[in-house]
């Protein structure tokens, strides 16, 4: 007999699980339904099927500009976060040194700072140093936010890898850069990709810090926030929301499948 769950218990819990999943996805489904609803206001009863909101958003220059801006910011900041993360993770995973816990604390501290506090501190910092607010300042902030996540993904993977292969490479005369490029990097690649994805999605979705340090160009969350407060374009925004949500779900699932596949191959 099962020591953790009775048959009734299992049925109850699986029912609860199903309900929770429904609760989690229902609002997304609601958005999906109303993105095709032929009415300015999302409300019952439904008014007929239309794809014009999708057409409108596809031709909305502000929205597309915002999406593009966010993509650029996310790409640059995630690259930066992963690069810095790799450096830091190698040190944390492979080296012993004095003050390791302090350094770890500093590197992971952005995880706990409330974003509003961080956004404001960056605002004041850029004022004090005379750096004008722009996409660059957003990138800087996002690298800080994403760095701990990349470290949290890379360090476990680095500790998992047997250093034997690396040492063999050194014994054969390879320098640190060649060893890293030819041995370590391929082994941690799935984790690097995961880290990059996490950093990318964090940056793409990030509103709070961006709202304080952005210049004149809007990122997508900032566009979205103002659309939410000033909802004259609500149906279009719903259409965008559906597209972004569906795409991100596909990417998440795809990435996970790919990661499993890659790790299984690497383990073999």
């Amino acid at each position, binding site marked *: 007999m*099962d*020591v*953790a*769950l009775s048959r009734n*218990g*299992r049925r109850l*819990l699986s029912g609860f*699980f199903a309900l*929770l*999943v429904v*609760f*989690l*996805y229902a*609002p*997304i489904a*609601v*958005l999906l339904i*109303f993105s095709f609803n032929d009415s300015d*206001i999302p*409300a*019952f*009863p439904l008014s007929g099927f239309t794809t014009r909101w999708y057409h409108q958003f596809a031709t909305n220059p502000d929205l597309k500009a915002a999406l593009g801006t966010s993509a650029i910011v996310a790409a640059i900041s995630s690259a930066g976060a992963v690069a810095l*993360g790799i*450096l830091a993770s190698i*040190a944390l995973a*492979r080296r012993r*040194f004095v003050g390791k816990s302090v*350094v770890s604390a*500093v590197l992971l501290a952005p995880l*706990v700072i*409330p*974003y*509003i*506090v961080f956004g*404001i*501190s*960056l605002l*004041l*910092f850029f*004022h004090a140093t005379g750096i004008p607010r722009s996409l660059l300042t957003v990138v800087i*902030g996002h690298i*800080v936010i994403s*760095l701990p996540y990349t470290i949290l993904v890379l360090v476990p993977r680095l500790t998992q890898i*047997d*250093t034997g292969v690396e*040492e063999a490479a050194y014994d054969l005369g390879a320098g*640190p850069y060649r*060893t890293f490029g030819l041995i370590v990097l391929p082994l941690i690649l799935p984790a690097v990709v995961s880290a990059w994805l996490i950093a990318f*999605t964090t940056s793409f*979705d990030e*509103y709070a810090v961006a709202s304080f340090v952005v210049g004149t160009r809007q990122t997508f*969350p900032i566009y*979205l926030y103002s659309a*939410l*407060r000033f909802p004259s374009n609500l149906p279009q925004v719903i259409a965008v*929301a559906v597209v*972004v*949500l569906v795409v*991100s779900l596909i990417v*998440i699932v795809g990435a996970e499948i790919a990661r499993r596949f890659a790790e299984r191959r690497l383990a073999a």
Partner: protein
Amino acid sequence: MGRSQGSLRGHIATPALLGLPVAWLIAFFVVPIVIVGLYSVDVYSLFPGAHGFTLGAWHGFLHSSVYLGLFWKSVKMALIVSAVVVALAYPVAYYLALSGTKRKYVLLLVLIAPFLTSYLLRVLAWKVILGNNGVLNSFLAWTGIRSANHPLSQLLYSRFAVILVLAYVWVPFVALPIFVSLDNLDRRLLEAASDLYASRWQAFLRVTFPLSLPGVVAAFFFVFIPTVGEFVTPSLVGGTSGYMYGNQIADLFSTGFPDWETGSVLALFLLGVVAVLTLCFARFTQAREAT
């Protein structure tokens, strides 16, 4: 792991590795916070006028029933959200970890996936659903369950809305640490309990739950800490009664008449509380690991 790390030849020195990341964080994380601190005691200011070290703003804040009251209001809200979220996530994490279902990782992914999509978009979904003429109320009116003149109006622009939406946002995330600690549970302990004639309930209370507590506590903190300073959701669905501490900080910096000094004080106070809580949590997990 291989031989002692210090003696491996040809390695890049540790400072070279750590230099860039740590420098980045010092420049763009530590220094900005220090500047906020300086601002809060009026040593640094953007606006002209007489400035000099003073604890006036701190004094005013600590003696103000309004600001501290608002902080307490936000703490209560965050406590409720965290408790609700953990209570909802625990059963599903338990189910996934301990029911022996073959596809537990897939189902876990199904559970977590919404968290990895856009936060603002999920708030948008609720804004569309709640509201006097929103999806829920119009559905109730359409099906005749409630008359169109009496919609459930406390759904939107209320403290309830803030709690509901925040709980919705965090539930997927919280399932993970609880799942991990339940998944790591040694089932032999449960089998031993059963051999000793304990019922499943007793086994749960005496064995499973206590052993999963670190995961539960971790989950609780992971939600509580960011939620205390939350301002985006309250500004979108909170209305007047859902106005939170984070909103006040944002307002002090962006509306009315610039009062960045008070804003800095509020921001640092929040940071201080969060730092203390994080330290307590870190100590707690270290202590647990030691036993």
